[in-house]
């Protein structure tokens, strides 16, 4: 008797879980599992969207890795952004977070001002920076030249285009500032008092009290930053387009990664191969490279220290 009710209870609870999870289960199948499998399938096919796909073995793979002139520059640029942009973003975000916890007057005003750029839509923010950093008429170079600093070519110079993208990323630091601020305010006050009694300097207090307490958040910021940097798409694309002065629809073909491939990133290659060259098979190869890289860092995010994002009880 009691085993029967237990079994039916179990079945009811399984049905209930299934019912609540069903939107996502369907979404997972249709918008994730099926296209994922298709991406792998197409990476071995020759397909231009018109003639039916034909088996091409590893041809797309060797094409992307050996003959597609944009792949390695894009990978190198992506790694540059991952290493330089992410470390600067985390350092700057922590710095601004620390600063805002020290500001005692007008805190709300400062916090709002620091946060606002994070909200600027990426296309609008990039257009704004392409204008601000425009070597010809941009206000930044006007000011730099007035004070006698040699003005760089920013988005028009291959050596400066990635630093310019980094500057744009630093401008939108608001989310990291909020996360760091929350973490910094959570550090137990007694630890600072104890350190001060022991005669610790400001740097020592930061190094031995603050940093250990907030290290999970630093790690979280690094890993999510790496994942975001690897996905850089809109900002480098718009910056390159605006800086190159391309006029849409006027028969001018935009040179991807302007200037000199310096703003190419991996996601841009998927677009270039799939939607400009209609080589869906090779586009899927790049998509899979992107997938593997993202999943490596996501796995790191979930496993590190028993999970930066905890599964719960």
């Amino acid at each position: 008797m009691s085993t029967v009710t237990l079994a039916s209870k179990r079945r009811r609870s399984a049905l209930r879980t299934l019912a609540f999870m069903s939107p996502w289960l369907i979404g997972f199948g249709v918008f994730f599992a099926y296209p994922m499998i298709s991406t792998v399938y197409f990476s071995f096919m020759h397909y231009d969207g018109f003639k039916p796909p034909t088996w091409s073995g590893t041809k797309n793979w060797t094409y992307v890795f050996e003959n597609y002139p944009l792949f390695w520059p894009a990978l190198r640029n992506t790694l540059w952004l991952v290493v330089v942009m992410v470390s600067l973003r985390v350092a700057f975000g922590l710095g601004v977070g620390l600063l805002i916890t020290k500001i005692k007057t007008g805190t709300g005003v400062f916090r709002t001002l620091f946060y606002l750029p994070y909200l600027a839509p990426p296309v609008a923010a990039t257009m704004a920076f392409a204008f601000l950093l425009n070597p010809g008429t941009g206000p930044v170079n006007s000011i730099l030249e007035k004070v006698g600093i040699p003005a760089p070519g920013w988005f028009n110079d291959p050596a400066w285009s990635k630093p310019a993208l980094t500057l744009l990323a630093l401008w939108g630091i608001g989310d990291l500032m909020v996360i760091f601020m929350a973490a910094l305010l959570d550090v137990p006050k007694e630890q600072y008092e104890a350190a001060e009694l022991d005669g610790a300097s400001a740097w020592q207090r930061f190094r031995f009290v603050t940093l250990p307490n907030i290290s999970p958040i630093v790690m979280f910021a690094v890993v999510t930053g790496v994942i975001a940097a690897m996905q850089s798409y809109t900002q480098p694309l718009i910056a390159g387009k605006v800086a190159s002065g391309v006029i849409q629809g006027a028969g001018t073909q935009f040179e991807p990664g302007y200037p000199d491939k310096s703003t190419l990133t991996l996601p841009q290659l998927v677009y270039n191969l799939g939607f400009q060259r209609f080589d869906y098979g090779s586009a899927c190869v790049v998509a899979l490279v992107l997938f593997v890289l993202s999943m490596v860092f996501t796995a790191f995010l979930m496993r590190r220290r028993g999970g930066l994002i905890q599964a719960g009880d």
Partner: protein
Amino acid sequence: MTQVLDKPAELAVTTSPAERTARRKALLEWVAVHALGVAAALFFVLPFVFVFLTSLMSDSQALSRDLIPHTWEWGNYKKVFDTPGFLTWWKNTLLYAGAGTVLSVVSSIPVAYALAKFRFRGRNLSLMLVISMMMLPPQVVIIPMYLFWAKQLDLSGTLWPLIIPMAFGDAFTIFLLRQFLMTIPNEYLDAAKVDGCGDLRTLLKVVLPMARPGIAAVALFQFFYAWNDYFGPQIYASENPGAWTLSYGLESFKGAHHTDWNLTMAATVLVMAPVILVFFFAQKAFVEGVTLTGVKG
């Protein structure tokens, strides 16, 4: 700004010499911190200021190196609104963002609730898959998704391929809501059960009212995701200017007005402004959302 720089009253009071040096040190630190704060504020605010000032310049002045408009050309904003398509982009963006937000929040709530409060086999695996989906660049699955929507369903040139998937739970929304629902004590759910509430009633009558701040946060994030999205409209809507959104249209606007920085910056201001306006009305929800993204499990 002057009020910001006022020094705290207690710094003015002095007593013993030892206390005085301590006070002087505190004052120095106060000055240093606030000077740094002002410097940082300039870095964050000046881009907005220059963009706004340029949006008010005359055509010829926008091509010069001047920083401040000679004449304030408020008519630039009217010109932007009169540009063919601009109002359509607004309408499309509101449709994409509005419908997308409602659909994703409504379909994500039960999923997030199950992940936060039900105990079942495969729960941790499901959560890991949700996080993986959240971290996945959209480009990874775009080829088959495009072929599916455009070739099989013939929906390219519309925003439906971006809106319809929102009815099946959005990974980011699910994750954030789940983080929020974890903070609601189980005692409330148990009490509802004792009172004879079923799961659905508990969710609707007990959990949802308590989850309002979390729901507001994810709704805002979802709304701005659609508002800011460039890649989605580029893939599905680019061939049909009648389906362009603000983010996609803004880029083409620069293409059509390639020398008119003043009009381009006026359009940029108009795309940024709603986001910033909404922020001032819903600051708490934003900050709530940002803190939910990380940190506490």
